[in-house]
Every structure is written in C-alpha cells, then in structure tokens.
C-alpha cells in the first residue's frame, strides 16, 4: 500500500490491462470532493445517500480490481455510514427542542473538506509556478572565476535531518547489541551532563541540591540522577559528603585546562 494513499492504477502492467479507468485520489477527502463536484451538489448540504453510495462503489471497484486500499479510505467509509445513519434517524419528539439545536452531523466533515480544498488549491498554484529546473534555470555550479579561490571563513551549512541521517548510517553499520537504542531519554541525560558540567565550570564544588530547581518533574529528576551517575562512571566528578548526615557535594574530578585543548591538536 502506498503510504500516501496514492492509488496509482497504472503502476504495473497487470493493472494497466484493465479497461476501466479509475481516477487516482490522494485520500478520502480528495475522493469526496471529486464526488461532490461531479454530482454538482452543495458542499454545505451534501446528499449523503448519493455520495456515500458512490464512495462505497468506488472502494468496491478498487477491491474488485484487487487494488490495495489505504486504511484511511475505509475509515472514511465507516464515518460516512455513521453520519448517514444519524441523518436518517427521525428527529426526536419536540419535547426538548428548546435546547440548543444539535449540530448537523455533516458539519465536521464539511469543515474538513473545505479546509482540504483550500490546500489542494494552494498545491495546484504551487505546481503552476516557474520551477527551478523546469521553467527557469540558474547557474548552480561554481564559476571558473571562483574555482581557484579558497574561502577564508567557512560558515557551515547543514540541516538537522542530515545530521540524524548520518547518525542512522553509523548505527546501521554497528550491530544492535553494541549500541543500545538512542531515545529521547539519553538526549535528556546528555543535556543534563552538559548542564552540570557548565555549572561546575570554574567552581570547586557544587551542592547536590543545586542541581534541582524549584519545580522539577520526575523525568528531570531521573535524568539528573542518571547524569550524575554517568559523570561518576566517567570519573569526571566526585560525589562527597562532609559527614554522615551532611550535604552532598559534587566536585569536578578533572579540571578543564589549557593543556586539554592542546592535547586535542595531537
């Protein structure tokens, strides 16, 4: 199944041999808009019996052609049947009609259709623009005039998605066991490690309680504890207590110094 609900009939030869021409719809909303337009009915007063029948006919036809049907089409089908059964119910006896009039069961659907229609229009006007590489061309290569020149400063240009894709590629090469899943949690711990280290910067010690601001939540607490544990494991901090019931202090185990930076050059 196409994840986009893009049902392309002519994708393979087998399907192309069918003589029935099935139009391709992006999703249930697209199909509904088509049916509404085709029947020339008012979108604010959709005749559900006609539209639902034609909608289901379309799905049935796809089934008969052995086409995979995106789940969203089926969800919409059941929604339509539901709305239709609501509209078919006889209006309740007017005893309680003084209450606010119930919303038309079709209202939510109409809202979605109008909203979708708006973006579909927008996508059409996007497609009609002069597109680079289709209607208009620019020089995208490095001019020979600049080829020999070495840039002095190099501001970096990179997208977040490229970063995570690079990480994914590394993980794909390394076996699963040697690398536990990286989730949001480890990011938080990494972040807390950095925060603790920057709090410690230039100080001799830090009160353990200082790591917890006034209104921290449970996740924050856990991340902070794990961060301190990780830092202990790395032997980057020492946790000390002056006496049995005294305050707990965190001390940097290694002072960051000029020599550390110098070492990096090697």
């Amino acid at each position, binding site marked *: 199944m*196409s*994840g*986009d*609900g*893009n049902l*392309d*009939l*002519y*994708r393979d030869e087998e399907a192309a041999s069918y003589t029935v021409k099935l*139009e391709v719809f*992006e*999703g*249930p*909303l*697209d199909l509904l*808009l*088509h049916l*509404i*337009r085709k029947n*020339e009915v*008012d*979108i604010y007063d959709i005749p559900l019996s006609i539209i639902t029948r034609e909608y289901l006919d379309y799905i049935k036809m796809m089934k008969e052609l052995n086409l995979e049907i*995106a789940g*969203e089409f089926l969800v*919409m089908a059941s929604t339509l049947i539901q709305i239709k059964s609501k509209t078919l119910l006889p209006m309740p006896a007017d005893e309680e009609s003084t209450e606010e009039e119930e919303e038309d069961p079709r209202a939510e659907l109409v809202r*979605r259709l*109008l*909203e*979708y*229609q*708006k*973006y*579909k*229009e*927008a*996508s*059409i*006007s*996007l*497609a009609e*623009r*002069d*597109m*680079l*590489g*289709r*209607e*208009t*061309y*620019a*020089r*995208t*290569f*490095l*001019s020979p*005039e600049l080829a020999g020149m070495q840039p002095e400063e190099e501001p970096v240009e990179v*997208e*977040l*998605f490229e970063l995570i*894709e690079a990480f994914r590629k590394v993980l794909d090469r390394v076996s699963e066991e040697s690398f536990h899943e990286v989730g949001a949690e480890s990011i938080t711990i990494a972040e807390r490690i950095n925060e603790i280290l920057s709090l410690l910067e230039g100080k001799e010690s830090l009160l353990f309680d200082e790591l917890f601001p006034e209104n921290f939540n449970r996740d924050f607490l856990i991340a902070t504890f794990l961060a301190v544990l990780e830092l202990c494991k790395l032997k980057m901090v020492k946790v000390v207590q002056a006496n049995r019931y005294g305050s707990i202090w965190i001390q940097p185990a290694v002072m960051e110094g000029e020599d550390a930076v110098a070492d990096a050059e090697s």
Partner: protein
Amino acid sequence: MPNLKSIVESLLFVADAPVTFDRLCTLLEEFDRGEVKEALNALQDEYGREGRGVVLAEVATGFQFRTPAENADYLRRLTKTRPVKFSQSALETLAIIAYRQPVTRAEIEYLRGVDSGGVLKTILEKKLIKILGKKDIPGKPLIYGTTREFLELFSLKDLRSLPTLKEIRDLSETAPYEQQEELPLGQSEGEGDQL
C-alpha cells in the same frame, strides 16, 4: 574609478545562490547602500527588457540571474536533465507546510486525511522542508517548516509572496477547481524524477 553596476552584475553572475541586498552591501562595504541600491535597480531595468535570455529574479530574499520560462524547452536540450516532477501528495504536503508552518505531522495528516510520513521523509531528503524543533505539547512532536531551497525551487521571493489561500464558498461554482481533472496525476510515471 570602479563601476558599481558592473561589479554588482559580476557578483550576481558568479554567485551560485541568490544574494541578498544586505549581503551585497556587506561585500561592497566601501560603497553606500543607496549606491548599491541604484546599481541594482539599473540592472533590473536592463535585464527586465523584452527578449532577454537572462533575467534578474528576486528569489529566497535575494537576487539571482535566471532564464525566462519561454526558453525552458531549449535549455532542457542542454542540461539533459528531466524536469523535476512532483506527486500530488508531495505538493499538498508542501503547501500545507508552507502555509501553516511550524506544523506537526499529525496536523498535516489531519488536513490531508492520509498518512504522510513517507512523503514527509522524501521532501526532507530533498531539503524542501526542515525540522524546526519540537512542539512544546505532550509527546513533543517534531515541527516542520520550509527551507530556502523551497523558495528557490518555486521562484518565491519569500513566504509572504505565497498566493493567499482562497476560501471557497461553493465547490460547484469555482473555476479553479475545474482544472483539477486536467492534473496529470496518472501520466507521471517513467518520465522525470518523481518526488
């Protein structure tokens, strides 16, 4: 005595991406902004004349020399690259992101009515959208926005120059919607780089 108009023309010509007015002024710091503006205007006049094979376009908040649409067929012979083709789903998703950014995947899928994960990944890979961060709501979903490449691709000066969204009152009357059937939705396979 340097000829500022000539210098600006050279700069825009060799640059491999649109150059903003501010960047131009920074590069040409010994000239004042008014002079740079004047040179730019003179160039726009010159390249705006009828029948030019190179035009000075304003895209992605910058200036860039580009070829006019009427010559596209001939240029295709030179580049031999098949024009980029977009699926309707990629276009719909791009439109939603362009108009509603920052926007989450769930919002996109609600508006489109279909799963949009695959198409999001594709346009992320094409750098037409980017991850802006996470939304500060439960679940912290990723939020997406369009990129400079998006503006360049669709020849847009900035996001404000996107056509305003039309509120359609009555479907059966609207002319633009009539064009829907002519969309080459089925005929796209094979030719071009389908997104």
